[in-house]
């Protein structure tokens, strides 16, 4: 058996329609997992919306709480006596805490909404 038997070189020929990959829509999960440009856009949009939210919170805190020292300096709030102490004591010692909690609560609601929007986008059939 030294020569080449022409029968061995035979190849099967089939219609291209049977082996071509079926056209399937790629899911967002695949796009993200494979780090395609489209996947990047999805993740970036989530990160950006969450960052925007965090910066809004920071700005609100900076204005509401960070503005107080200047307010105390400019306005004559200590002239207002409430019970045993001037007004600034009540603002700083009591009033600040519920405000911080409410800002935090609004943040949690909004950030969960951002995540839900992202999840809906990713899981869209």
């Amino acid at each position: 058996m030294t020569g080449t038997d022409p029968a061995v070189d035979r190849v099967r020929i089939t219609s291209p329609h049977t082996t071509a990959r079926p056209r399937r829509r790629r899911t967002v999960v695949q796009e993200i997992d494979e780090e395609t440009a489209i996947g990047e856009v999805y993740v970036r949009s989530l990160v950006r919306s969450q960052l925007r939210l965090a910066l809004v919170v920071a700005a609100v805190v900076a204005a509401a709480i960070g503005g107080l020292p200047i307010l105390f300096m400019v306005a004559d709030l200590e002239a207002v006596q409430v019970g045993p102490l001037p007004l600034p004591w009540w603002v700083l010692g009591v009033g600040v805490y519920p405000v911080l909690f409410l800002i935090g609560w609004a943040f949690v609601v909004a950030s969960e909404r951002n995540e839900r929007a992202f999840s809906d986008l990713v899981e869209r059939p």
Partner: protein
Amino acid sequence: MSSTYAAVAVAVVALATLGIGLFGLRFSRTTSDFYVASRSVSPLWNSSAIGGEYLSAASYLGIAGLILTYGADMVWFPVGWTAGYLVLLAFVAAPLRRSGAYTLPDFTQMRVQSTTARAVASMLVVVIGWLYLMPQFQGAGLVLHTVTGAPTWVGSVMVAVIVVVNVISGGMRSITFVQAFQYWLKLTALLVPLVFLLHAWTDDGRPTPADAGASAAWLSPMAADAPGLALYATYSLIVATFLGTMGLPHVVVRFYTNPDGRAARRTTLLVLALLGVFYLLPTAYGVIGRVYAADLVATGNTDIVVLELPMRMIGGSLGDLLGALLTAGAFAAFLSTSSGLTMSVAGVLAQGSVGRRVLGPVAGLRAGAVVGTVFPLVLALASDQIAVASSVGFAFAVAASTFCPLLVLGIWWRRLTAAGAVAGMLAGGIGAGGAVVATIVRGSDDGWLDLLLSRPAAWSVPIAFATMVAVSLATQNRRPSNVARTMVRLHTPERLLLDRADGP
């Protein structure tokens, strides 16, 4: 004050802490149990534990002492210590949990893929932990000395020993129980005596601090002679406390015990509520202290004002009992904060090369706990007493100047590089740390230099951020290759089945 009641109170807290810790031992079997309680802690437990861990001697005793001495400007301390959690919630909480790291060095390595950056972060965790532990030990000595007359080293050594035993026996799971218990103990221990004190104050005709001779500078914020100095001091304190909380190693480690990122946010929100309730109390003690215990200012020993008030205003055996309850709360404060700090310092030391290779993770943690406690204990015994809240303030300034930029830029900025992270942490750490050392060495006076050194955050935090950004931009060719995957991991909700490159 009757030393018997107080001694009994201290003994009860110590035994209860040890008892609950040993109870936790029955559940701690795996490495994951030891470090992060297997990530199965619910938001209410976790937030109580964070509150219990966070409210240290500085909050429990120190704030009232500072308010007694300096007045309105000091109310910024509790405000900042609470608001820090809001900043943490907005920028860090959920991504930090999703990072899946045990400790800050783990996070650093995960994000920038560099063992050098990890080593710098480990060093900073230990430095911040020790800065924070030292005043806890000193405070414990002071309190035990005040209430029982025992030499100051007794209280310090006692707290150190209990903490080490606790960490060695149960690790994080037992610490979670202990911390949660201690939040509620501390709240009760301040609240109940306050009710009696307010009653006594009403009976006394409700004298105000002004009636007791408080000055205008004490009564109103920003009323100091030099408005520029006062404004700088306040804003620097705001920067340090608002941004420093997220960089405290013992706080951050608690976020890994949440089941997922969403739970981490809810936990943080609950913490805001728990702290807001708690911090109403020390301020009240400081104000009442100004009426009834103003003479303490001259002695310089204002950290004990909280413990003194029941004796001065009520007296008798009721006064003794309330004093004992307050002492119990103070010990809860020392024990819980020291446990958390020791836990995180021990975790970092155990994960160092010696601990990991020679001893294995659990034995390494145990050895780390011993080593991590001995140094600050020696420091506490050897150095002079500084006001607890001030010296804790230094730890905040260093944390804000190092880990805050690392976490914020690491989570939100894709272009952070290992070189940038290292340079920024070193710049902030050397700046703030150097200022702290200079303050301790120089002593204090009233000038600008003193203020710039004792409240460094306002300049050291911007320097750290700027350095981290500038060096990262200069080393863009060495950006970690997996940053896209890391962003997916940090920011996407866990229930989406995405590839997060977080191993099996």
